[in-house]
């Protein structure tokens, strides 16, 4: 207990941020599809790159990504980290592996949890597939994918995915 005569230098004032989220047209289509266990990406009308999750436009070309492309839930780990430090925002048992995953047919990776594998065995090039929540729990949310886990396919060579780092 601090001395009652000590001047107060710091007081804790908890603050919180609340906001209304408007996903926009492109993300709404993605979320409606993932509610049906379908992964819908979008192709740029300029460079032809496929974005998932899509945001409606390609930042490189400044063009709309109008064409919808359905992707599989299989992909490749392009890079990863093993998290061994706790965070207030994430309630996961440590250590855990977080991968940068490039879905087959997509041109941009996203981060996802990797499980059903020892963290020491996670490696770039590893082939993985989504593990989904039970159908009864499906929502319009990326959290429908609980994590990715390894599948019995040969690793992809580094040259094939190194441009996606």
């Amino acid at each position, binding site marked *: 207990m601090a001395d009652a005569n000590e001047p107060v230098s710091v007081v804790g004032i908890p603050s919180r941020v609340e906001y209304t989220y408007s996903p926009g047209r492109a993300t709404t289509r993605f979320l409606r599809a993932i509610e049906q266990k379908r992964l819908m990406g979008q192709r740029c009308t300029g460079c032809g790159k496929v974005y998932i999750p899509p945001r409606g436009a390609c*930042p490189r070309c400044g063009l709309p990504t109008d064409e919808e492309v359905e992707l599989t839930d299989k992909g490749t780990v392009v890079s990863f980290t093993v998290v061994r430090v706790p965070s207030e925002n994430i309630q996961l048992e440590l250590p855990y592996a977080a991968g940068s995953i490039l879905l087959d047919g997509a041109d941009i990776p996203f981060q996802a949890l990797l499980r059903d594998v020892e963290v020491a065995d996670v490696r770039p090039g590893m082939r993985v597939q989504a593990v989904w929540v039970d159908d009864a729990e499906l929502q319009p949310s990326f959290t429908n994918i609980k994590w990715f886990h390894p599948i019995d396919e040969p690793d992809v060579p580094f040259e094939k995915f190194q441009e996606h780092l």
Partner: protein
Amino acid sequence: MAELCGVVGVGQTQHDAKREDVSQVGLIREAAERALEDADLDWKDIDAVVIGKAPDLFEGVMMPELFLADSLGCAGKPMLRVHTAGSVGGSTAVVAASLVEAGIHDRVLTVAYEKQSESNAMWALSIKIPFSATVVAGAGGYFAPLIRGYMMRSGAPEDTGIRVAVKDRENALKNPYAHLKFPDISFEQVESSPMLWDPIRFLETCPSSDGACALVLSSEKLADQSKKKPAWVHSTAMRSEPTSFAGRDQVNPQAGIDCAKELYKKAGITDPRKEIDCAEIYVPFSWFEPMWMENLGFAELGQGWKMTYEGATALDGDLPVNMSGGVLSTNPIGASGMLRFGEAAMQVRGTAGEHQVAGARKAMGHAYGGGSQYFSMWIVGAEKP
């Protein structure tokens, strides 16, 4: 540029995890007063103030520049705030220099700070986005896969990052203002420190600091009159790119490459490794030293790690990097870029004390921010450009 700009004063605070002895006001005053003292000037000599800091959530105070205006002597003077995430300390100095170079003001005080202990930056950086899955938090989780990407591409030896950390932490021992000091730092100590975000170890990571940095910039005429030797601004450059797009190279971002090219071109530099005497580079995780050596054109692609390995970036190497101990030793985020710029100025003014590079005539300051998407840089010299 129409006018030359000289750095005539450099000031910084004592950096620490918690500066409970000062408020945000006290922190920036400490740096600003030291810069004015170094310049042998007073508040009345300042024409305008440019302030920079990282996101407001880092302290939990919205638009702090409004309540800081008075304490920075801005009453009746122009003031503006710059914000480009972690690179902001650099871009704030660039904006301040451009006000002088454009002939708008003769003497500008520029200040950058962060008082990280007043909130939680890791939390502030990791706000949960609805309908998405958040799997990593903070900068470490974000940058670790990119570091692994660099390791795969370059085939760099796995202990490269450890070597950078030892070098920067040894340099910090020579810097009286540095936050983190490990008097008996060794390879073994870094190697055995806990892995936080594989492959980033605890001692390969920057701290959270409270601190501020300030510079006084003058037009040529006024800089010529200053008692101490100015550092002349030879060139400045800034670049940005989107956080995420298909085919974006996050390990070696195009914006960084382009920014450095413009910087060297404006300064008339064709061989940066040879012509630049030392560089303060924004390295918040040790592996970013070799990554930026390549991005900035000091080394060929895939070869940056060799500079660390061969000792080229050591204080007695051919291109000393992070003489002050760098971001690894001191990281008040908003001020971190300006500390790099300020160190570059100190080097060419010959005022860097124990971490002075003998005979430094041309030095580079560098900062990056966001998801490696904002870059700001300057080159300062002992002679006029």
